[in-house]
């Protein structure tokens, strides 16, 4: 069976049930593909065993890029391209560059972080987000299990496990 195509979905009404279900499913050896919820669920990263996000590293690197670009830009403009004496200062009056440098650092860190987040979570404009169940935008939590990665356990066992863990319904979903 091909990976990332056929899924079995547990639909949950309540986030507390969901959190316990995730632990139960994981301890029984089933690998969870993803959990979708209409709002952020506190502590879900821990029970899913996710490592800490590396987004802050991206933010730092984009911030540094902003700092460097801002300094180069101002230095080029003020010292090389069009030197002007302002208030009797040097052409390259470093203290006066700091507000602009700060702003560009913040701007690039923020934009870079949003961009990286969009791309890494498949929300990019050219991406095709897959909707597992339209109700995850309203009031249902969905726990998706990839059938191919858990082939050894068997579809029926997984469905039973999800039902036992408190899922209100268990559905199948396939993508082309």
């Amino acid at each position, binding site marked *: 069976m091909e990976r990332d195509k056929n899924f079995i979905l547990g639909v949950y009404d309540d986030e507390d049930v969901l959190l316990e279900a995730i632990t139960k499913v994981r301890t029984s050896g089933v690998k969870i593909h993803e959990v979708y919820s209409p709002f952020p669920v*506190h502590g879900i990263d821990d029970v899913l065993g996710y490592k*800490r996000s590396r987004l802050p590293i991206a933010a*730092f690197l984009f911030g540094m890029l902003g700092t460097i670009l801002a300094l180069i830009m101002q230095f080029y403009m003020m010292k090389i391209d069009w030197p002007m004496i302002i*208030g*009797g*200062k040097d052409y390259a009056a470093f*203290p*006066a560059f*700091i*507000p602009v440098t700060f702003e560009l650092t913040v701007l690039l860190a923020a934009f870079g972080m949003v961009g990286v987040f969009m791309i890494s979570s498949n929300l990019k404009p050219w991406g095709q987000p897959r909707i597992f169940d339209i109700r995850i935008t309203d009031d249902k939590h969905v726990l998706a299990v990839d059938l191919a990665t858990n082939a050894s356990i068997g579809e029926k066992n997984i469905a039973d496990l999800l039902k036992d863990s408190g899922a209100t319904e268990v559905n199948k979903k396939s993508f082309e």
Partner: protein
Amino acid sequence: MAHGTTNFNLDQKFDFTAALKKSIITVLVIGAVILAIGIITNMMGGGHDHAEEAGGHAYHWYQRLFANLWINNVYFTGIAIIGVFFFALQYAAQAGWSTGILRIPLSFGNWLPIAAVLMIATFFLVSHDIFHWTHSYLFDKDSPQYDKLIDGKGAFFFWPLAKGSFPIFFIARMVIFFGFWVFFFNKLKSLAFDEDLNGGTQYWKKMRTWSALFIIFFAVSSSISAWDWVMSIDTHWFSTMFGWYVFASWFVAGLSAITLVVVFLREKGYLEMVNENHVHDLGKFVFAFSIFWTYIWFSQFLLIYYANIPEETVYFVERMQSDVYSPFVFVNLVLNFFLPFFVLMTRDAKRHAIFLKVVCSLIILGHWFDFFLMVQPGTLGHNGGFGLMEVGMLLVYGSSFAFVVLSALAKKPLIAKNHPLLEESYHHHI
């Protein structure tokens, strides 16, 4: 509830052991000895004499002692009042996360009565040597040393008496500020400990009201005390940002001190219900307000640098172009901005005691340098500097402050056990 605050010993008190007392007193004695050696070397002519530059007065060794007294009076008063301010802030904001650590900032307030006595006594001891404006000839139009600018500001110190006589308005402000600070501290303290005995939410509600009143009073008094106690040293110069600047410096130093005490108590096995999430939030406070201090410092600097008006730039010329003080301007910025900014940036650094211990200790030293740079150039000029006297006096004040705070912590329970938000604090998770 299986996981709740009831699992902990909520009546636990800090045990201020004889060994700890001894080591703090040892530091105090070492500080006193260093101070004494510093005084002796200075008396033997360690300071070079630049009579003309020091404003027409000959330099005496005791001026440096007075400047040091004043630096530490202002600095430790600030840390103490920030303790009360932080405590009041938690009530005014109805914050729940901090409930487990509330007793630590509260205990800082016990330094305030001592600080009040020290500050007023020191003012009378040092007046002419620290505060140029106390000289009566500045206000005498017939005197060759008549100073029109200071004469214009005279009423702020001497009203309603004649300018150049007794600075009654200045003294009255000092007494009123300390009086109200101590009053608010005692009020909050007694409500907090009554809550321990009787329980119920009415204490929490009363403390919210008193905290809000204190914060309103503190907003005005912290700013005016900064003008009075620090900015009036450079009498001709003024900055509209100075109140914020001193407050920011006090606040970061106070937050670092709170964090250090919390980390220290946790290592000794106290405050069991306080976990790395609370420490993380304290770390965030230190990180954020270090940047806030830098923002204020830089805003003040940039406006003066860019406008380039001589009567304003003199403040930075005296510091940045002085062979005595220019290195400390950079020490100040490195310790108070670059160090906390880069070290405390990551989440892990804010959650682990070792980083916080190093950074918070260096920040407390760094903000001492900040006050050193505010006081010494205007009082001592070329005769100042960072030497044995400075180290000794800082150790004496620091260990006395630690002694007062730890004795206060030993007297009452470390956890506000009847605080309505205690359970919320226990479940704090970030």
